[in-house]
């Protein structure tokens, strides 16, 4: 296990120590496993809480900041945070304007966020929930609500965060974020496994020359395993699955996220985007803006995902709005 760490056991806590030491002006830690904006609660603003397992930086806490979300509960690597920590976050970010829970669709996270929402309601905090469920490979269209949330959550944070920053009400934030979620689709490929520090061995085996198509963010197996394809072929496969799913249509305008899973160099992500851009051009889909980099990772997994979000005027301006966190800045 070629990792820089002291001990797998306090991996997450030491990581949080480091993040707080580096970014004390921007973040604070109301409990051991809760991170919120240093200036939370922001008076009069809808609070946005998220959370989930560790190992996905900048997801989740990397999006805590101005123009984005307000707090995150932090789980162990690939495991849900506790409802206690979710409640801590909720209380720390609630300014009375209501709180949106915005997180990926995973069993443990749902169980715990639902419990936290009940407890928050007892405190008089109004909570609404939206789940990221953008991974088209994780369930067929007829079971779309069972899909897992992967990198597409970045667009949902951006939209919800910009709407909340603009002073929108909870109902308005919910409405526009649901519209964003309805138009967001992701699919990825993995070229290597990753190793959970406490487990010490890779989560799966993938022979050289093979890739896993549709792999989950935790290394859950994808829809199929096959020979490693070229960037052009991977782009074709991912765009075909994504475009057909919504479907996106000729004339649609989209935002595009090409996300690296951890070990794949930025150089390769741009080679992939080159292929994607050609295909979208041929399909008559206009690209408004492109984000390329590591936005939702799986430790040191090699591979990439592609996300599209269908835009309208409001979503476009929310995506373009400025934002600033220790992990993501948009001017």
């Amino acid at each position: 296990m070629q990792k820089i760490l002291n001990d797998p056991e306090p991996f997450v806590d030491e990581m949080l120590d480091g993040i707080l030491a580096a970014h004390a002006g921007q973040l604070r830690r109301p409990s051991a496993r809760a991170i919120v904006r240093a200036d939370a609660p922001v008076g009069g603003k809808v609070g946005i809480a998220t959370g989930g397992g560790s190992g996905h930086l900048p997801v989740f806490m990397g999006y805590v900041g101005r123009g984005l979300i307000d707090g995150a509960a932090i789980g162990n690597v690939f495991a849900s945070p506790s409802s206690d920590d979710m409640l801590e976050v909720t209380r720390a970010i609630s300014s009375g304007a209501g709180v949106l829970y915005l997180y990926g669709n995973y069993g443990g996270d749902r169980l715990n966020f639902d419990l936290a929402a009940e407890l928050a309601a007892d405190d008089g905090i109004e909570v609404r929930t939206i789940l990221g469920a953008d991974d088209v490979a994780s369930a067929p269209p007829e079971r779309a609500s069972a899909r897992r949330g992967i990198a597409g959550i970045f667009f949902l944070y951006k939209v919800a965060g910009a709407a909340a920053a603009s002073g929108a009400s909870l109902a308005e934030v919910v409405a526009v974020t649901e519209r964003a979620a309805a138009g967001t689709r992701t699919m990825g490929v993995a070229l290597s496994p990753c190793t959970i520090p406490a487990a010490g061995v890779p989560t799966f085996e993938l022979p050289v020359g093979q890739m896993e198509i549709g792999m989950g963010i935790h290394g859950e197996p994808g829809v199929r395993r096959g020979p490693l394809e070229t960037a052009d072929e991977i782009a074709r496969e991912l765009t075909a699955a994504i475009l057909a799913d919504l479907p996106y249509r000729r004339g649609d305008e989209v935002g595009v996220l090409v996300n690296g899973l951890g070990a794949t160099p930025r150089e390769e992500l741009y080679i992939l985007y080159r292929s994607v851009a050609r295909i979208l051009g041929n399909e008559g889909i206009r690209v408004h803006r492109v984000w390329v980099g590591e936005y939702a990772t799986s430790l040191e997994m090699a591979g990439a995902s592609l996300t599209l979000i269908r835009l309208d005027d409001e979503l476009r301006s929310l995506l373009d709005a400025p934002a600033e966190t220790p992990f993501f800045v948009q001017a």
Partner: protein
Amino acid sequence: MTDASGFVDLLRAVATRLQDHRDELNRLDGVAGDGDLGLTVSTACRAVLELAPTLESLPEAEAIRKCGTEIARRAPSTGGTLIAFALMAAAKAPAAPDTPPLERAAAYLEAAAGSIALRGQVEPGDRTMLDALRPAAEAVRAAADAGADPGSAARAAALAADAGARATATMPAKVGRAGWLADRAAGNEDAGARLIALAFAAASRSRERS
């Protein structure tokens, strides 16, 4: 009111033994899931073993509830959270002051199985923990009804849980991502079901030694 010393002995025995199965449970969970159930289990076992000394003098139901809240706090994965909820539900199982031990056990297990079905929104046959827990609960209820001794009830529960876990190997999964990956998982038991079976096996073995 029964104190928790019997429960705590059992808890210690089970939690100690389950830690040996970390890698096996990780591996099974990795077939269609994220390969971390063994980590959750070892975290949860460490948590309850640390908690154990504070439980002994409590009423049994309270000790069970505290185990649940501790696991919810320290090992809140899907499996961990469902088990935590199940323990909390068990702690609320109605039991008259001097219900005999096996009756109590049956009531706890039925409440636990009911909680998992409810919270997890699953039925038997969905390839989850429930497929091992429900048969074990039924075996304990049958033993209690038949007036069996705790040792043979524990053996019956362990056998039933094991058979239930084995059966998951041929079940198509319904929950989560696994639902779309039936073929890949085929031939492998559900990790959560195997965990339950291992817990009952540990419980049965500890009864035999005592």
